[in-house]
């Protein structure tokens, strides 16, 4: 029952445009089912102040026979200039840049709203991470004085190749040179960006998810988003605490949901933004943070590994970064184009920690955090068209991660900044053209193609073009070996100056082989000291979703969808979802009689465990799992772990 928390702790001037704010919720007479209580309270009498509360905080009771239709509910609406879905580095950089431009150029005050589904800014942010400060230096040059949590410079970097029992150093591509970069908690850094945004007057609303796109009358443009309804029970019926979501009508809508966002997916389909582009491919990054003994702690050390435990056909590798305060961030990225449905990225990671290279560091340490998230691997070839009428995709929603560098934050931030500049130009020029607010309702949706062009000419695209062939070069019969050979050549000598571009030919789910074509993989049991069972790890994410809400992981609505899913996944793919999900959401449990969905198994979705990594939506072979946004404020709480906290070291 935790309430979404407003992070507004600074006085803020609500500009005059909020007067347009209209509550259009139904009052007493709208429906015979409703029994609203108290819409306005007039208290008169000598000496007392008349109070009129025109906002209805009533609770509607719906007849239980009527099936509740969320589309029929009237919602509060608000007019803003820019609505940004997602409070990550891209979204917040865009917001900050907009406010900076407003201050530099003067003119009307812009209303910029950031919607973030996590309980706080940073709660859903997970990354290694070693960040390049290129974009931050442009956005906030005095970030050090302002207290940005970039405290640990990267002091050394190395790459190792692991075999089952040993490891040896290997050369790494020059892109992975980390001089000048910082090892950070991206979650904390994002929280700091959120504070900077609020200080500039951005309205940041954590705990509110953008769940639906609003289209213009003719359906050809985007006019805003709707936040999620809260207080629906698991059958979709309103409870006493029901509050409908709110509509934001914005001149520009920026989608900054991160990799494989739900609204991004919808918009890319609707406006055909992927036409002529390669499919986006992904990796799943699984991370833990450990507190380690002084003897093995080397602050600033950056290590990446290739090889064991992944086989030569599976793309992936690990990282180990020594952060501040005896804390070490380590993890494994597994390319989701892996072939073997028995592969469990989680268990690969757990067994990897037993390798002497990792075990020596983690021995007698304490695991204090765990998380996982899908990340983009498609690179330049997979970037969709970035703009659509009324908005644009920024950050990992589009996909600017530089895979060989394993860095995307600087690109995401830069994309946010460029989108802000384009949006600012369009908004200020269109508002000077039409002063009347109502006229702008019917105005043409803003064209953000200026942003797409700016990106093409930016250092982001330059660096992505240079490395465009490295990751796809792993799609060859020799797998890892071919990839490493080519990558060595390209990154050191050719530097992408070649006429060819390797393509990402397949979606990740398409490359999965059938269970009958591969051998099952035997994983060791966790020992509870270095490796852990998945439910223990999930509890370390702090994830929670309010009970009794609709399950946010949706099968298609048609009759028999569940049975068909179970049939195909169990017989052909050995229950892949149960192995790939890093939060133990999906299970194909043994069942009997009427409980069976197919093949003697029941498909169980433990949606409360979900950590919003999006892997299920990417890798399900039958592609019939749709990830939708649950009630705002739920999901993991990554921000609380990566602080230099006062945790007592175990004796």
């Amino acid at each position, binding site marked *: 029952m*935790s309430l979404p928390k407003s992070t*507004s702790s600074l006085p803020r001037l609500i500009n005059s445009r909020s007067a347009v704010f209209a509550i259009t919720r139904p009052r007493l007479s709208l429906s015979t089912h409703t029994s609203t*209580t108290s819409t306005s309270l007039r208290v008169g009498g000598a000496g007392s102040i008349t109070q009129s509360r025109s906002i209805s905080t009533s609770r509607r009771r719906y007849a239980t026979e009527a099936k509740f239709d969320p589309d029929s509910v009237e919602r509060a609406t608000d007019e803003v200039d820019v609505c940004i879905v997602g409070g990550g580095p891209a979204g917040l950089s865009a917001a900050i840049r907009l406010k900076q431009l407003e201050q530099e150029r003067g003119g009307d005050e812009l209303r910029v709203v950031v919607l973030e589904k996590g309980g706080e800014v940073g709660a859903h942010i997970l990354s290694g991470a070693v960040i390049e400060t290129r974009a931050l230096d442009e956005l906030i040059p005095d970030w050090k004085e302002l207290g940005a949590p970039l405290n640990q410079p990267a002091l050394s970097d190395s790459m190792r190749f692991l075999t089952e029992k040993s490891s040896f150093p290997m050369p790494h591509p020059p892109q992975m040179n980390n001089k000048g970069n910082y090892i950070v908690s991206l979650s904390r850094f994002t929280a700091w960006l959120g504070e900077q945004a609020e200080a500039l007057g951005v309205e940041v609303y954590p705990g509110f998810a953008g769940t639906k796109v609003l289209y213009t009358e003719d359906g050809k443009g985007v006019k805003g988003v709707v936040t999620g309804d809260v207080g629906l029970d698991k059958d979709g019926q309103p409870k006493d605490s029901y*509050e409908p*979501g709110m509509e934001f009508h914005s001149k520009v809508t920026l989608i900054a949901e991160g990799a494989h966002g739900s609204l991004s997916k919808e918009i890319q389909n609707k406006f055909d933004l992927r036409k002529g582009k390669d499919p986006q491919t992904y990796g799943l990054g699984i991370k833990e943070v450990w507190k380690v003994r002084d003897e093995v702690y080397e602050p600033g050390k950056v290590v990446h590994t290739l090889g064991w435990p992944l086989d030569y056909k599976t793309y992936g590798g690990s990282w180990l970064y020594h952060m501040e305060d005896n804390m070490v961030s380590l993890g494994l990225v597994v390319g989701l184009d892996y072939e073997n449905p028995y592969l469990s990225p989680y268990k690969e990671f757990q067994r990897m920690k037993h390798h002497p290279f990792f075990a020596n560091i983690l021995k007698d340490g304490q695991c204090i955090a765990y998380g996982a998230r899908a990340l983009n691997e498609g690179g330049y070839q997979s970037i969709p068209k970035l703009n659509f009428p009324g908005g644009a995709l920024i950050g990992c929603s589009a996909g600017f991660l530089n895979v060989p560098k394993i860095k995307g934050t600087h690109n995401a931030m830069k994309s946010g900044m460029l989108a802000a500049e384009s949006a600012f130009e369009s908004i200020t020029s269109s508002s000077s053209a039409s002063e009347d607010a109502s006229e702008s309702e019917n105005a043409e949706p803003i064209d953000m193609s200026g942003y797409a062009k700016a990106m093409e000419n930016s250092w982001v695209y330059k660096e992505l073009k240079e490395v465009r062939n490295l990751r796809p070069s792993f799609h060859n019969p020799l797998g890892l070996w071919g990839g490493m050979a080519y990558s060595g050549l390209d990154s050191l000598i050719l530097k992408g100056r070649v006429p060819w571009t390797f393509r990402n030919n397949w979606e990740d789910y398409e490359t999965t082989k059938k269970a009958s074509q591969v051998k099952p993989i035997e994983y060791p049991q966790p020992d509870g000291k270095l490796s852990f069972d998945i439910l223990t790890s999930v509890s370390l994410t702090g994830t929670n979703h309010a009970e009794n809400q609709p399950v946010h992981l949706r099968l298609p609505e048609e009759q028999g969808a569940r049975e068909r899913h179970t049939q195909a996944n169990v017989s052909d793919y050995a229950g892949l979802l149960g192995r790939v999900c890093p939060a133990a959401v999906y299970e194909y449990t043994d069942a009997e009689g009427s409980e069976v969905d197919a093949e003697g198994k029941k498909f169980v979705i433990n949606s409360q465990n979900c950590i919003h990594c999006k892997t299920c939506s990417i890798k399900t072979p039958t592609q019939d799992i749709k990830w939708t946004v649950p009630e705002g404020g739920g999901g993991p709480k990554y921000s*609380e772990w990566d602080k230099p*906290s*006062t*945790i007592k*070291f175990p004796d």
Partner: protein
Amino acid sequence: MRPTLPRLVNILVPVKRSIDYAVKIRVASDGKGVDTNVKHSMNPFDEIAVEEAIRLREKKSTKVDNITAISIGPAKAVDTIRTALAMGADSGIHITTPENAVVEPIAVANALKKIIDDKKFDLVIMGKQAIDDDSGSTGGMLAGLLGWSQGSFASKLEVEDGGKVHVTREIDGGLENIEAKLPMIVTTDLRLNEPRYASLPNIMKAKKKKIETFKPEDLGLDFTPRFETISVSEPPKRQGGGKVESVDELVSKMKEAGVI
């Protein structure tokens, strides 16, 4: 002759910023407290209190004049007050304390008494306990200091027009119904209600609502703790159990352990 004016009830709702209920608690490195560098939210029992105050206003049977949320805590406690405002409270009071300062129940009760004496409240609805210290004392202490009636562990609350109050209390043996008159203290138990979500329009509106800020010295209050925490430690790790194959084995193991 003028009819007597209906009595207007002023409600005070104390809210506390405490560690979020879903957070995994860890002992701090000095062994004298817990790690507070984690997510905080409004104490769940206080959420129920705010919700109850708002429901009282929505019911026409009670004429509520004003609902004030008050919090005694560090700078960030203002977020907790804003949450109460977003749920529907009208104004807020914030008594600021230094970061990480301990404010004991008696200090809170004294502070609340001062505010109540100054600003004249008729009804205080507060959580029965805070989930961080589980003291459960503030409500009773406040009632004692003020000499007011109290209805604690309330699972049902009704306030009649003339100031008569019916409280159903959760007690060990079941439920107890009491009747009292305003002014009084009510402390909330879990079953009283399910708090509403603060909707986004209300959060936006809450930014315009007024919060008065005081320092303890301004009100002549002294928050110096009377207790010193000697140590805090985790409970001993649970020893694994063993599995037995049959009832006989169970019985013999129990005999071994000296249990039977």
